[in-house]
């Protein structure tokens, strides 16, 4: 019993990560508790996300896992030259997952999955110093996937299936650093689109060269969420032909990048399991956030992002204490796709060290409660976004006006789930 408690403490002081960009790695409490590893771990229905090839290795005929996390994530910013400080007051994000698999026969399982691997929720104080870049943003994408998992041999399987995505975005920012109406209210625009559909797929394979070792690979395709005819709502625009901003429609494309995972797990004995995953997220597709307004009188908004492909290194361990309790801990290092000079306050993410922990409690033979937490530790960083432009007052030509300062993020994410096997 004492050892259990000590492991709990270790989990707290060992640390964690939260994914860069707007990737939200919270697709299973068991995997998350182990540093969000799982491409080569056969544990429960979370495999539907981590590696559908493994579903066929689950012992029971019916497997289900559902869960939700509460994302407490905030950012503080300051600019020492001008004595400015701002903090986000972001709403608590609640990414969820629901997985189900059914074993048709020894060779074939089918499944359904719903999960939210991408999203962002950042709310700065309205009209803060960086409000010309973002006041607040809500980004959500729900993935729904049909799955099949096929056992080729006793130690090799493949799996995958098509993905349907329903995405939404709501983004508000001020038009520039100074434009106001007569009463000094800052001119701003909200772009809003929801129910935007897109399709993709994922596929994986799992191989067990020896009983104690599993190796897995999984690939999830890139999905471009193309918002067409979303609403652009302009507010506090001065009554002037010089500022012809009236409500209109917009088109924009937001890429949800592809992700490749390879990993291995090793069952040391009945109690200890070790897992390692490597993620490569192909963020390079996110070159620019371009908002194309339908009204020809309103200039389109081009916002260079120039993300680069990035890697995440994940480590997890699981300790099966007894028939009731299983404890887990993990760590991952998350490399930010955001490059220096492109540090926009809508996703102010630098590299992070992430510490995870959690446990499962088997309530009955069929039902287990899974709990996890994630603490993301970011170093404070001096960064700027250098690609915002304003017309130069003397020439009228666009001129870059960097927005920078010192940022520090933190994220703490507790999660709860249920695993059912029948």
């Amino acid at each position: 019993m004492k050892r259990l408690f000590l492991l709990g403490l270790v989990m707290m002081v060992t640390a964690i990560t939260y994914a860069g960009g707007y990737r939200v790695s919270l697709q299973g409490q068991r995997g998350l508790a182990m540093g969000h590893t799982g491409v080569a771990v056969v544990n429960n229905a979370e495999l539907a996300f981590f590696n559908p090839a493994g579903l066929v290795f689950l012992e029971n005929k019916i497997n289900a896992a559902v869960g939700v996390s509460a994302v407490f994530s905030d950012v503080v910013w300051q600019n020492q030259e001008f004595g400015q400080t701002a903090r986000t007051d972001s709403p608590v994000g609640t990414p969820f997952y629901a997985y189900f698999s059914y074993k048709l026969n020894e060779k074939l399982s089918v499944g359904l999955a719903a999960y939210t691997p991408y999203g962002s929720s950042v709310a700065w104080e309205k009209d803060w110093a960086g409000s010309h870049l973002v006041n607040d943003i809500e980004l959500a994408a729900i993935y729904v996937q049909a799955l099949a998992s096929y056992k080729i041999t006793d130690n090799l399987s493949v799996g995958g299936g098509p993905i349907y995505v329903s995405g939404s975005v709501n983004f508000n920012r001020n038009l520039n650093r100074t434009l106001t109406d007569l009463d000094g209210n800052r001119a701003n625009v909200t772009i809003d689109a929801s129910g935007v559909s897109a399709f993709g797929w994922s596929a994986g394979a799992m191989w067990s060269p020896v009983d104690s070792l599993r190796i897995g690979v999984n690939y999830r395709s890139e999905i471009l969420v193309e918002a067409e005819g979303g609403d652009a709502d302009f507010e506090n625009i001065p009554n002037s032909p010089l500022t012809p901003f009236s409500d209109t429609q917009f088109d924009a494309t937001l890429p949800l990048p592809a992700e490749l995972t390879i990993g291995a797990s090793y069952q040391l004995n009945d109690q200890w399991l070790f897992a390692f995953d490597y993620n490569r997220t192909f963020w390079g597709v996110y070159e620019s956030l371009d908002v194309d307004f339908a009204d020809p009188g309103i200039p389109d908004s081009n916002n260079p992002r120039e993300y680069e492909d990035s890697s995440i290194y994940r480590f997890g361990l699981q300790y099966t204490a007894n028939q009731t309790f299983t404890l887990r801990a993990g760590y991952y290092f998350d490399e930010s796709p955001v490059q220096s000079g492109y540090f926009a306050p809508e996703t102010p993410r630098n590299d992070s060290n992430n510490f995870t922990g959690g446990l499962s409690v088997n309530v009955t033979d069929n039902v287990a409660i899974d709990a996890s937490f994630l603490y993301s530790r970011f170093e404070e960083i001096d960064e700027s976004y250098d690609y915002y432009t304003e017309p130069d007052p003397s020439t009228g030509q666009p001129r870059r006006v960097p927005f920078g300062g010192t940022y520090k993020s933190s994220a703490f994410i507790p999660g709860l789930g249920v695993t059912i096997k029948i």
Partner: protein
Amino acid sequence: MKNYFKYIAILALGVVSCEPELENAIEDGEVYSNGEADFSNYVALGNSLTAGYADGALYITGQENSYPNILAGKFALTQDTDGFTQPLVNDNAGGLILNGSQITENRFVLSVNADGDPSPARYTGADPTTEVSTKLAGPFNNMGVPGAKSYHLVAPNYGSVSGVATGMANPYFARFSSSESATVLEDALAQQPTFFTLWIGNNDVLSYATSGGVGEYRLNETDPTLYGENDITDPNFFAMLYGQMVGALAQNAGGVLLNIPNVTSAPYFTAVPFAALSPADENFGPQIPTLNATFAPLNQAFAFLGVPERSVNFATDAASPVLIKDESLADISDQLTEVLIGGGVDPATATLYGMQYGQSRQATAEDLLVLTSAGVIGTVNTQRVQELMALGLDQQTAGQLSVNGVTFPMEDQYVLTESEVSIVQSATTAFNIAISQIAQDNGLGLVDANAVLNKLDSEGIAFDGGTITSAFVSGGAFSLDGIHLTPRGNAVIANEIISEINATYGSNVPKANVGAYGTVTLSQDVQ
């Protein structure tokens, strides 16, 4: 077992409550310092520039962006302060009302006129609601009073509501003076300021200049009750008074003095070119041959009288200087009439020409046309038409001889002539010598506002969004009245004051981000 869950829950909650914290956080109050200055009770004294007056009116957002308010925000980052209060007006229309009647005009906004050109116009989208007789309960840290001259700060009854109607008091001060008889300086000192800024004296020369030099330079006159509204204050009197005020303020407070910008660096005096008559103008251009033919006998007369420099010629290939009346010129009306008659011009016309052109000449680059002349040049002066018709001219001829700046010399109030400019400059120089000496005598900071505005006028001041200049409308420094600063201009001044404070008091006060402050406001809600 239950206990373990409890511990984990407590640990978890501990982490949840951990907001991100920076190592060297401004919020912790350890980044900046007040040095030897004490900003706990900062009081700003001055005139419209201090009040946050802009675009020809006092309105809320202008006050919010006054340089004292910007400064106070930065001071509060260095130490605990008592806050900074301003006598905010009621609205963003600007304009004051006294007992229900409007007594000052609404603000200017930038509107696009019928020709498609952006130009300043008075805002008419809302009626003013700031009633002078509704007294505000003070005290107020911002004691800037639009229109105040140096000696007004110590003038009893300057804040009397009943005096406003008779022109004996200032409506802006009447709104918030502590009593009918209180002086601005008394109300400031009563607050026991620990730090002050003083920017006064501009109006002591400015009203002479904005009126086109219709007042007088009151050298050696030390009784301000004898001064006319547009007179220039005697520099020795100014120095004595200024020294007394600063001595009283500095007794228990640190502070910064700002000197007086040369008014001629403001767009009010520079925006309208002396050669304002373009041959491309469809009303003026086609008339040039006729005009030159009309002026030909006059020019011969000027040459005959030995003043060929008063000749009037309009070029067809370049913009021509406007015709002005220069009161410093010898009045040669009678001689001119005689010579014209001698040259064969009928006596009636000769008399008329003599009267009209006895002190006229075309402007030179040394003359400054004030902003209000822009809407007048090239238009028919209807008052003059009436006068001429009363003298017996038919309406058409009267109209031809009444075109402002073309056939009718621009009147004194529209032009600051070369000699008037030099009077303004010599007075400004004398005031600034006094201010500099008084700053030194009292160990106070001194901001050379004159140099700052000259720099804005000559080369501009760089900021992260480009260069801020004095160019009218587009330069960013000056509001649409051409004299008062925009929020961005106020930020520039605030930064100069901060530099001086940091140098004088060993403080570390952060600067304002100039590019985040706006310039002119757009609206089509105009007449």
